[in-house]
């Protein structure tokens, strides 16, 4: 354990050794929005919950705006990658395989041993590494590749979200995962389009249905490369803001939050009125380049 090992012969870099977990291939942003990966669950001898994941780094052509293809590097075929969900104190084990032509790692935010930090143990093409740690503390965390040049490995799409639930669960709610990002399609060091969950203007064309009065919880993180900040603005409403998702008390009440790369927050709100309400970056440029969507609130 905790060694970079060569994958069995016959594993061709660029091709996944095994299919990603069902439902994760060719996901639309809407799937990322509501899909939580609890892993393969079992009990360790001491009674601790074990959650096992298989993460395969792949080279995948993804559509980042209608008709615009992007040669991405992905965890399990999508940008962002799967949303890892566990509870504080769970044992998390991630079998990482590198099926691309470049070395990669998984660097998870949170508390864990140095050998599980995804910095020194670079995983070359055709090799694997197993990350194992106890989920600690509870909160909302991003994960991403930490191979140099890091900027390239992030802008190519190797990132995702990890939710560590508190021991006392949060109030049940309509839960949504939103990862703010951008894509530099012409490789000039500037993003051409901005998205939530990987496709520009997706939630413009596919509004998210909500119910009047129902509690909505958004797990929001920013993995935008090249631009220093990104932001989220909610129309016709205010939300409770829990920065980093590490507390459930004393929220700030606002309708706009600004996050730098790697920052994240949990947002909670209920809609008072039915109708279509916009949400978008409150940087007009990002909004008009694809980071814009609607909540369709039904009575």
């Amino acid at each position, binding site marked *: 354990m905790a060694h970079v090992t060569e994958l069995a012969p016959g594993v061709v870099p660029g091709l996944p050794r095994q299919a990603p977990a069902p439902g994760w291939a060719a996901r639309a942003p809407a799937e990322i929005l509501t899909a939580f990966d609890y892993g393969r669950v079992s009990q360790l001898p001491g009674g601790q919950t074990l959650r096992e994941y298989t993460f395969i780094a792949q080279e995948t052509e993804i559509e980042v*705006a*209608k*008709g*615009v*293809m*992007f*040669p991405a590097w992905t965890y399990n075929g999508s940008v962002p990658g799967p949303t890892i969900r566990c509870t504080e104190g769970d044992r998390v084990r991630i079998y990482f395989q590198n099926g691309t032509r470049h070395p990669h790692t998984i660097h998870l935010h949170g508390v864990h041993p140095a050998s599980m930090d995804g910095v020194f143990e670079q995983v070359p093409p055709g090799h694997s590494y197993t990350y194992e740690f106890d989920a600690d503390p509870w909160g909302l965390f991003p994960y991403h590749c930490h191979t140099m040049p890091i900027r390239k490995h992030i802008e190519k799409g190797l990132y995702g979200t990890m939710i560590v639930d508190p021991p006392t669960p949060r109030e049940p709610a309509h839960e949504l995962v939103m990862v703010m990002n951008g*894509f530099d*399609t*012409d*490789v*000039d060091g500037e993003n*051409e*389009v901005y998205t939530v969950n990987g496709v*520009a*203007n997706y939630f413009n064309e596919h509004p998210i249905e909500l119910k009047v009065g129902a509690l909505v919880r958004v797990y929001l993180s920013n993995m935008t490369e090249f631009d220093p900040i990104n932001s989220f603005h909610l129309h016709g409403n205010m939300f409770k803001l829990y920065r980093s998702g590490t507390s459930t008390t004393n929220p700030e009440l606002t309708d706009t939050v600004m996050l730098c790369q790697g920052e994240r927050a949990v947002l909670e709100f209920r809609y008072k009125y039915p109708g279509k309400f916009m949400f978008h970056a409150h940087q007009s*440029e990002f909004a*008009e*380049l*694809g980071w814009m969507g609607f909540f369709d609130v039904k009575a």
Partner: protein
Amino acid sequence: MAARSHDGRGDDGQGHASDAPFPARPPDAAPTSDTAPAAPASGKSGGALALLALLPVALLVALISLFVVYGDELLGPAPVPPDALGKLDIERLWFRPEGVAVQVVNTGPAPLTVAQVIVNDALWEFAIEPGPAIPRLGRATIGIAYPWLEGEPVTVKVLTANGLAFLKTVPIAATTPEPSSSLLLLFALLGVLVGVLPVYLGLLWFPLVRRLDRAVLDFLLALTAGLLIFLGVDAVVEALELAGRVPSPFRGIGLVAIGVAGSILVLLGVSRRTIDAAAGRSEAERALALSFLISTGIGLHNFGEGLAIGAAYAVGELALGAFLVVGFTLHNITEGFGILTPIARHGTTLKNLLLLGLAAGGPTILGTWLGGFAYSDLWATLFLAIGAGAVFQVVYELARLTTSKGGSRIATPLGAAGVLTGMLLMYLTGLFVA
């Protein structure tokens, strides 16, 4: 490759001693046995010539066919996919009340597909004719219902399916004129103001010039040459600048070379037929022919000038102010003067004067129309180059006209002073047309 014999002929037995295109072989050389297909007796030598001409072509066709079939195997996979080197040139933008139209041409090595259009950093809905897939050297027109603002910059960015971005910025957006009778008239008026009128004003010096003595006239002829040299250099620089905006497959610099050389050669032919044909008659006729040649050259140059003015006005880069008209008038009045100098000593008819002015100034109007309604970098480059070649050729004619047994009268201290004065005059009046 086939070995070659020392007399420069291939060993394939082509050609006859009598009609070989190479220098004749020594008479003692025996004729080669000919295995060429028999041609009809009447056209035997013609047939053999045709064969000589066609053989390399046939071999070339065979080579190309082989390469098309086996080339990929020979070269192996390309290190970079061709569409990664894609290039889309945004040729023109039109601004209409209902939005923006964009004309693109695919100047890269592979077909490209337009996927998204971004205007001033916003993704915008668009329509594209004939369709989003554009073959190599194909064109398409994109219509975008974008609420652009008069007088503000507009940047259009076209994103292709493989993520490449191509953009063009118009610094000051203004409604693109559509051909209408009133606009045609406006452009014509523009042409008259900057091209025709100044030339005729220059021609009004005719009575004065007639009374000048030979030395002064020679000075003025040299001055005319100076004016023309300045115009020519100016036009070449402008043509080369524009050549840089011509889509690369169309080789703008090559167009400049063709334009300059072509117009010089054509005008040389014309001058031989006019000036030299008049040589047997009188010096007066030769002088008139030269004046017409000068006005033709200046006319070609003014056509290019009109093109630039029309285009600049159409895309809103030119405010037609009184200052500008005054500047062009000052600049172009010297042209009318230059036309006069050859005929000064002989006189001419009013009709000829009117014709001379029309030849020099009239093309300005045509230029403003073409530039205003159907501008293209490619044609503008070519016409500017043609204009440049024309004025250089006229300078050459001037030098010839003033040449007698003692050499050219331009090549004297007085002449040199005249040339420099002419160039300086152009430089100074040009300051008004910045």
